[in-house]
Every structure is written in C-alpha cells, then in structure tokens.
C-alpha cells in the first residue's frame, strides 16, 4: 500500500508539473527550448528559496524527474559546496551534483548518433 501511495504521489505531482509546461505551450508563444530553460531556472530559484526541497520529499521522482528537478539539483549542489568550501563551491557545486546526468546525456547522444540514422517523419508517422 505504501508503495502504491508513493507511486501515486510521483504520478500526480510529475503530471501536474508537465501540465504547467503544456499550458505554456498552448497559451503562450514560448518555444520548447525557452520552456526548458524556464523550467531549469525555475528549479534553481525554487530550490534556492527552499520550496522545492519539501516537494522532492513529498513526491520523490515526481519532482526530481522533471527539468525543475535538474535545476533543484544544481541549487542543492551549490548550497552544499558553498557551505563546505566557500566561494569556490559556487563554481563547482552545481556541475558536481549534476555531472552524472550531463555526462550520460552527452555519451548516450554520441552512441545513438553513431548507431542510428534519422528517418523521414512524413513516412514513419
């Protein structure tokens, strides 16, 4: 039962964050790239003012998987690093905390590009 509630929380909170994105797509002129940037920066800010942490506590992956979670991760990393090593931490903390994800994205992109070929979407669907 606990696990069901945990999944339900992730589903609902993650879904709602995506709905915010969809509202931006439908009702503003913002392009996808701008929306992505907006979400990451919003994650940094919400993390900085201490609002995003409780949401992660509550919803788990529902809050960490959306791009706001990436921003939150950057903020959290910076906060820990500044506490530990002062001003240097402002430079190193963010990337240190998100290094795994960024490196994975770069490497898997490279692999996919080496293996696959782009296909004509007007045929494939």
């Amino acid at each position, binding site marked *: 039962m606990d696990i069901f509630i945990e999944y339900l929380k992730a589903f609902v909170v993650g879904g709602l964050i995506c709905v915010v994105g969809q509202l931006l*797509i439908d009702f503003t*002129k913002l392009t*996808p790239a701008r929306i992505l940037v907006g979400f990451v920066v919003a994650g940094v800010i919400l993390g900085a003012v201490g609002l995003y942490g409780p949401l992660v506590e509550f919803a788990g992956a529902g809050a960490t998987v959306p791009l706001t979670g990436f921003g939150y991760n950057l903020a959290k990393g910076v906060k820990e690093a500044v506490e530990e090593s002062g001003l240097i931490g402002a430079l190193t903390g963010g990337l240190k905390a998100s290094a795994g994800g960024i490196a994975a994205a770069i490497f898997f992109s490279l692999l996919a590009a080496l293996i696959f070929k*782009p*296909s*004509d*979407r*007007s*045929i494939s669907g």
Partner: protein
Amino acid sequence: MATRLSQSTIRLDKPPAILEHASIVGKKEGDGPLGQEFDAVNEDTTFGEKTWEKSESRLQSNAVNMLLDKSRTATSDVDVMFAGDLLNQCIGSTYGLRELDIPFLGLFGACSTMAESLISASLFVEGGLASKAVAVTSSHFCTAERQFRFPLEYGGVRTPTSQWTVTGSGAVLVGCDENKPKIRAVTIGKIVDLGITDANNMGAAMAPAACSTIKTYFHDTREHIENFDAIITGDLGKVGSRLLCELLERDGINIRDKHLDCGCLIYDFDQQDVHAGGSGCGCCASVLCAHFLPKLERGELKRVLFCATGALMSPTIVQQGESIPGICHLAEITEN
C-alpha cells in the same frame, strides 16, 4: 510582343504554351487525395541518396529528366532553365541540375518560386529569347525541417497554424504550340508585410501578398471573377486561405466559390496530421503539374489564375525578431 498593362501586369499577346509537365512526390503526398494523379510517387524519400540535401537534388533532377523524356526533348533543345528551391543558395537546384548541360538561371522566391520560374520562362519564350524553356522547383520535408525548424527526431510540438513541407517537385516545359494550355498574362507581385512574426504561421504571413497581387491583376486587366473557373493559390493552407478570402472581401472581391489552395488539396486533413496544410516550393509545383494542367488540357478547366505565394524569410532574421514579408506571383493560364 508583350503589352505592359501596368507597373505589375504584363499581357502576353503571343501566349506561350505549356508543352509538357512532370511531377514527382514522396510517400505522404502519394497517400493524399491527389495520389493517383502524380507522375511518380517515391516510397523511399531518400531517393537513394546518403543525405537529405542530395535526396532533394535527386528529386529535382528526376523531375526534369522525366519532363524531357515525356516530351521527347533533348537537353540541347532547351535554351534556358529557371529553377529554385528552399535551401540556402538554392543547392537543391544547382546540385540537382549541374549534370544537365542546359543554361541555368537560379531563382529564389520561397514557395512562390514555381510561379516566378513559370513567369520567367514564359516571358523568355514570348519575347523570342528562347524557343523552349524549363521551369522547375522542389521541396523536401527533411531538408526544410533541418534548415528551418528542428532535427527530424526532435519531439517538439507543432502549433495548429504550422504547415507541412511537401516532398515533391514539379517541372514544366514552356514553348509554342497551338493546342496546349497557354500563359495569357502575368502579374509580378510586390513584397507585402503586415507584421506577422510567427514562423509557424506562414499562411498568415503570405495571405496579404496574395490579396495584393490578385487585386492588382483584376484592376489592371479589368477582368471579372465570373470569367474564371478557379483561383489557385500556392500554399496558404487553412489559415492563410481564410485570411485571403476575408481580405479580398473587404475590397469587394469574392473568390470563395472559385478559390482552391494547393496546400489544402494535397493532404487529407482527417487522415494526415498536417495541421494547417502543405507548403514548400514543391507543393504548388507538383499540384499544378499533376492536377491543374491535365484538367486544362482536357478542357475541364478553361481559365484559371495560378498564384503561388512565398514567405521571404530565413531562420536568422526571424530569430532577430523581424516580421515575415510575403510575395505572390500570378499567371493566368487558359485551356488553349
């Protein structure tokens, strides 16, 4: 000799004829309502080439070669060739046609290029500067996506006003023949910009240009809309078509019963996910060659206006926030 009726409109007193036409499209266009009418439908939109740019070049050269085959014309008999496409520096045309050994003039008028090349070829033939001239344009969904929008595998969302670039090419051979469809008059369009900045709403950017050119034609020739079977626009799509009819109505011209848009004809809106309709130089080129010219030859249509529209922009200038200027060139075509 041609008679200049105004700054924009020229009447061709010795009207040149469209001797032959050829059209090739991709699979999606072949699956559309006009599928049976194209000369060739290619299931493989790579056209056997390694890159999409080469695919488009191959598409265009295939169209010209098919045209020459159908009309049994040798390349040495073609005096000049007007060609264009949507790619930077018109490489679809230049790389596609470089082997042909025919005098070449490259044109860019965005999606209006088919009318631009047809007008140029007609004026050359009418003026006796060429006995036979080719006009050809092409577009390819994949090259256009790469250049103007996003990578093919990018999961971005298209807005309802966006249009789908046609993979297709149309080519015509212009010369002299008593019994073939004729170009009677042309109106060279002016650049019109009513401030649309959304590159995903080309129809709205082009509609004012179409309105301006059509109005100019009727004003200059003193013709009446009742004397025409169809007013054919290039690729205004649903949104642009609606706007064109409304704009012309404000000026007292009602084309609703006569208006047909190639971008709306080429796809099935219910079955094919194309949002506002088709676009691209290959859209009106292939529909003209596959649908309207045969109808004119068979006498099912007697007199039409072919008005191809273009959005004269590049991704760079749109990113700088500039609005999108439109253009529309018009050719009056009769059954013979």
